[in-house]
């Protein structure tokens, strides 16, 4: 593979917002090591995590008010990356600074734009709005994975693997039998599967709390480059769910976004939310634990897959019919990286 597998001109989740708190938080986002912290007014900032002088990670230093102080020689940087103190001299070298990155806080997460700051439009942050809404309840997590981020996206866009990887938990034959539709646009791929007038699976029957046939849906939405939401639920048949009225039903969404750290590693963020029994903490914890064990099964497969890729550098994937959505997703990413290749991610001004 030539060139990075990830675009630079995109928003990537750097942290759940509550993890950016009093302290310096080191993170790696598309090959860049950054340090995150909050200014006095609460705004999050991201600086290159390497002192201008001798490259020691600034995250090993300390936060003093709004400034980061390097733990080696005490060089001090403001939240704009400017060096404002140097030891043993009366002036500060006017060139001394560390790079800063555009950062926005949205959906309970801190998002970072590693590419050309001039192109960083907060309106293009992936839609994970359900992660931070009072009418939805749930619990989140994030952790590093030792695999390329696209393997995770592939996995989330192909639920056929449930039958095999998750045979002991959520996998069953019924889902795999229902027809589905894959649609795509400039920045999205959507897989839609409706099962109309069926008997509710036991889990949903219990939570819906009403007898009778249901319409069940699974809508998997991919937002380039690395966000996947899985929208599942049931509503009593005839109450209009296929036409958009889910008011009589119950919905769960699993929100995922994956941030490449390096080519072979990434950080996985997820949150399962639901729009019913909002106050039931035991339910929240139970759903969280179930998801944890499912995702742990995925992790084993994904990291083994990355090992296999590393062991076979001359091999590439074959694709099956079930991989259509993943291939559309990869095609969107390829278009983004191609637009950046050869020229870096900076849009250069043209001259007459």
């Amino acid at each position, binding site marked *: 593979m030539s060139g990075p597998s990830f675009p630079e001109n995109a928003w990537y989740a750097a942290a759940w917002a509550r993890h950016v708190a009093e302290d310096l938080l080191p993170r790696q986002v598309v090959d860049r090591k950054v340090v995150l912290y909050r200014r006095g007014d609460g705004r999050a900032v991201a600086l290159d995590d*390497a002192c201008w002088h001798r490259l020691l990670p600034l995250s090993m230093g300390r936060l003093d008010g709004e400034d980061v102080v390097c733990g080696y020689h005490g060089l001090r940087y403001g939240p704009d990356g400017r060096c404002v103190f140097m030891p043993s001299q009366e*002036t500060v070298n006017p*060139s001394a600074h560390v*790079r800063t990155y555009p950062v926005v806080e949205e959906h309970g997460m801190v998002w970072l734009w590693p590419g050309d700051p*001039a192109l960083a439009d907060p309106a293009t942050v992936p839609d994970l709005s359900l992660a931070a809404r009072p009418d939805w309840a749930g619990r989140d997590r994030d952790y590093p994975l030792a695999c390329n981020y696209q393997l995770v996206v592939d996995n989330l866009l192909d639920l056929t693997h449930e039958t095999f990887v998750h045979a002991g938990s959520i996998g069953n034959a019924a889902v795999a039998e229902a027809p589905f539709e894959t649609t795509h646009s400039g920045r999205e791929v959507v897989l839609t599967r409706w099962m109309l007038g069926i008997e509710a699976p036991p889990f949903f029957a219990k939570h819906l709390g009403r007898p009778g046939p249901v319409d069940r849906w699974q809508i998997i939405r991919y937002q380039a480059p690395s966000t996947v939401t899985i929208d599942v639920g049931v509503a009593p048949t005839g109450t209009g769910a296929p036409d958009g009225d889910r008011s009589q039903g119950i919905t769960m969404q699993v929100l995922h976004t994956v941030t490449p750290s390096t080519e072979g590693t990434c950080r996985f963020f997820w949150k399962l939310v639901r729009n019913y029994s909002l106050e039931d903490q035991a339910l929240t914890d139970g759903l969280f634990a179930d998801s944890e064990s499912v995702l742990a099964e995925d992790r084993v497969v994904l990291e083994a897959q990355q090992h296999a890729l590393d062991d076979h550098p001359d091999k590439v994937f074959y694709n099956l019919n079930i991989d259509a959505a993943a291939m559309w997703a990869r095609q969107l990413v390829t278009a983004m990286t191609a637009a950046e290749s050869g*020229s870096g991610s900076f849009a*250069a*001004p*043209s*001259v007459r």
Partner: protein
Amino acid sequence: MRQDGAWTTATVKAVADAARDVRQIDLEPDMPVARPEPGSHIDVIAQVHGRPERRSYSVVAAPAPGQLRIAVKQLSDGRGGSTFMGRLTVGDQLLVSRPQHLFRLAYDAPGYVLVAGGIGITPIYGMALSLARRGAPVRLLYTARSTADMPFLDKLRDVLGDALELFSSSQGQRLLLPDAFGGLPADGLAYVCGPLRLQVAAREAWESVGRPARLLRTESFGSSGRFPAEAFTVRIPRLDKTVEVPSDRTILDALLEAGVPMIADCLRGECGLCVLPVLAAAGIVDHRDAFLSPAQQLENAAICTCVSRAVGCDLVLDTFDR
């Protein structure tokens, strides 16, 4: 972070006159280069009197993927780099560095004043276009002898419109820096590039309107001072040496050539590694550096040898040889 010091061969793809005495040169390095950020520069190896010498030029734009455009002012009293650069023709080759980022644009400020003096427009140009395209509140104050001395005017007018303000000094038009700076929102930034006089004026104006020093950004390659460069003599009693410094060479270069052991790094008057004690200076020391504070420069006890010069006198310097 500092880029490594790797040099690569670059080929001249196009040359043109961008303004009076300003040569625009499009270079294509052999190694692939990322598209340069606004405010970046490259180092080049110029041949000056048969010697290879390092010079720095801001990258104006990327005229095509993999290409870098610089613009060079022909200086009659310069150190010879501009003469070499001005004679380059299509197909010529020279050594260049990767783009370096020492004058980086911060994008989250609530307002910007950009100030360019003459050829100082080169790093400012990309900043102005980038900010204007983004819809950021930006003003560009651009001054030179006359508009004939201002490269890139057409494009700047196009993109900036009323945000571009021109000041022709030959017609007596003066920058009113305190007014411009005073009009910025509290966390507004100013970026200034131009001759030393302009930078000093900017610093004084910035201070006069009560702005914090950290929000004023200046860039200088140490190539101008308060006075024109002239030849002088440096005497070092400790080493029993007398060294001639021609008008187109630095003290540092002359000392190195005379076999005086020196260390230096930035070569633009910022890091302070090449500073030597001044034992005597009968005339003016033209301090052109940003390392010594204004008080230290008044005191005249030390000189930054990579950029600063003597005017109308010889210098007696000490070294740290023991």
